[in-house]
């Protein structure tokens, strides 16, 4: 347990976060520095920089295209991403001293239930099934696993918020403190670390790629 605690609790967080940031940076750098890509414009192009930003923002915040094309899928994916945002919000405020318990609980519920729902939508809809490779389901399963262990931890482990905050602050100030307590917490940590390493190499990097497909290809006019 101690060795696992040390590796998962004190070493891997840095490795995972490092790889996460580094790999994303490398991919963005690669995309940003490719010169003379084909300008394959797609009209209408929002008129002017601010209109383009508004368009992107609208798309990112509302998932307009999916909403327009598949309401069932939209509901699941939108709420799922809201769940991720809630957890991120909780984390940022938590290490700054607040504890938005409701945001955390809602976030965890969403990242558990929505992928389950999305999984069933994907399996039931023959068109979606035809374009899905196993990795699509795997991506959803990672979230289900993280969410389920989170739910279990909150329900049965009842961790002390102060101890957890102390642990995160220790990590953030590069003085990791040993992680007291449950295997469930370790389990969540390990899954999240795996996710952070895996994420930049997966298609989930679409949160960044979108900018390039619009800005460097579709919105280049002639």
């Amino acid at each position: 347990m101690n060795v696992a605690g040390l590796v998962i609790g004190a070493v891997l967080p840095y490795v995972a976060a490092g790889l996460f940031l580094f790999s994303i940076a490398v991919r963005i750098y690669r995309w940003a520095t490719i010169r003379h890509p084909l300008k394959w414009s797609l009209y209408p192009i929002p008129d002017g920089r601010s209109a383009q930003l508004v368009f992107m923002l609208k798309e990112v915040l509302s998932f307009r295209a999916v909403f327009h094309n598949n309401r069932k899928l939209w509901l699941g994916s939108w709420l799922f991403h809201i769940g991720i945002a809630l957890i991120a919000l909780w984390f940022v405020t938590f290490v700054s001293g607040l504890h938005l318990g409701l945001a955390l609980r809602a976030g965890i519920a969403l990242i558990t239930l929505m992928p389950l729902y999305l999984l069933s939508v994907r399996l039931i809809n023959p068109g979606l099934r035809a374009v899905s490779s196993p990795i699509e389901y795997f991506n959803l399963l990672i979230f289900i696993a993280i969410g389920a262990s989170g739910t279990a931890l909150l329900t049965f482990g009842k961790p002390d918020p102060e101890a957890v905050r102390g642990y995160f602050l220790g990590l953030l100030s590069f003085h990791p403190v040993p992680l007291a307590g449950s295997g469930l917490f370790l389990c969540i940590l390990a899954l999240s670390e795996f996710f952070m390493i895996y994420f930049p190499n997966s298609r989930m990097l679409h949160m960044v790629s979108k900018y390039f497909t619009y800005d460097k290809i579709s919105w280049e006019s002639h």
Partner: protein
Amino acid sequence: MPQTAKKEETKMRNNDKQTTEKKQKRSYPFYAIENPIEHDRIPVFIKTMGTVLRDEKYRLLLDLYLNTCASCNSCAEQCHLYQVTHERKDLPAYRSNMLRAVYRKYFTRGGRLLGRLVGAKELHEEDIDAMIESFYRCTMCRRCAVECPMGIDNALLTRIGRCILGELNLAPKNFTVSSAQELKGIGNTSGIPKEAFMDTLDFLQDEIKDMTGHKVEFPRDKVGAEYMFIAPVSDYIMEADTLMGTAMALQAAGTDWTIGTSFYDAINYGLFYSDGVTSDVLNRLLTEAQRLKVKKILIGECGHATKTAKLFMDVFGKYRFPVRNVMEYTAEAVKDGRLKLDPEVNQETVTYHDPCNLGRGLGIYEAPRAIVRAATKHFVELQPNRERNYCCGGGGGSVTVPDLYDFRMNLAGAKKVEQIKSSGAKYIAAPCANCKKQLKELVEYHKLPVTVVGVHDLLIKSLVY
């Protein structure tokens, strides 16, 4: 659908087994192909794909398009073909996945290691056959691209897929033969010799005189003119009214223009299957403009010709010229009062079809509408229209492939037929030569009470001198 998919897969596998067992010459049931390569298709395909992946103009978009699809099928909801057939091979994302499978298997570490888990698949002969079919069922209309939340353009992947197949000589015979004729033969896709072309221009001049009483000229080889006008050569045979209307408009607007008689075909089939052909044809066009020392190039109503010139000039062009579509020019002349049109002479209801290459491809949505509105009394929109307009069903060059006739009439064109019917229009104005041909065939096949015209056709009657 899953059962059909399964059946399809078994059928395909069995077909392939039979061909390999009998060791017979491969046959392509989809359309006629001239001199396809028979051996080493797999290594050549993979090698060509590698070249395309390293190509500077495609590197970024392929990295993005091949890696970030979220498999949400928004594209399928937008596809005029899938909405009719509901066949797996017509799902835009499924089609693109054919390329993704090869890319992952041979060009990514993850794919080599994890295989089918990440959608990587070893390339087999039957996969190439499936691509030959699927990439030519897509009409490359890009309606799906408008609705992709990731900004992926499946039509461009179709084009790249076709280009790779093209390197294996796996392209419809009608493309390769016409392109050879344009590049190495007589100099245009319809095989019209210069003398016959000159006669046609004279004939059109006489026609205009007979019809309207006005003397309108088709100026030829005028060195130093402001505009070189070039249209698909087929228009001179099939769309005489469009060209007459165009010449009348250009003359009435006081345009300094000329037609080159060394190269007079704007058709560039390269857009549909080959970068090499795209580049060669485009450079012949630019060389003609250079020879005539014109300032700008004015392309006829045709969409793919305008798009190819505008899009690929920076990439392949030996020379640079500003390129405009003639409808942009005419609309401007109508707006600033150089052209006066009388809508009273065209009383019937007219609608307008947005060709994919002019609309989504170049953003030319309003200019043609301005002309049609000025020249007719009752204009109605097709629903949906502009960037959501449906493809005529013959896009991506498929209209030139006779083997695809039944497919175009019954499947690819089905949505268009519905759309035309519900518009109630008596005339449908369509600028593209490609769309016009398909629409005319659809009208005949489905006995629709509509006449297909070009945009400038409407000017013949309505132009006020």
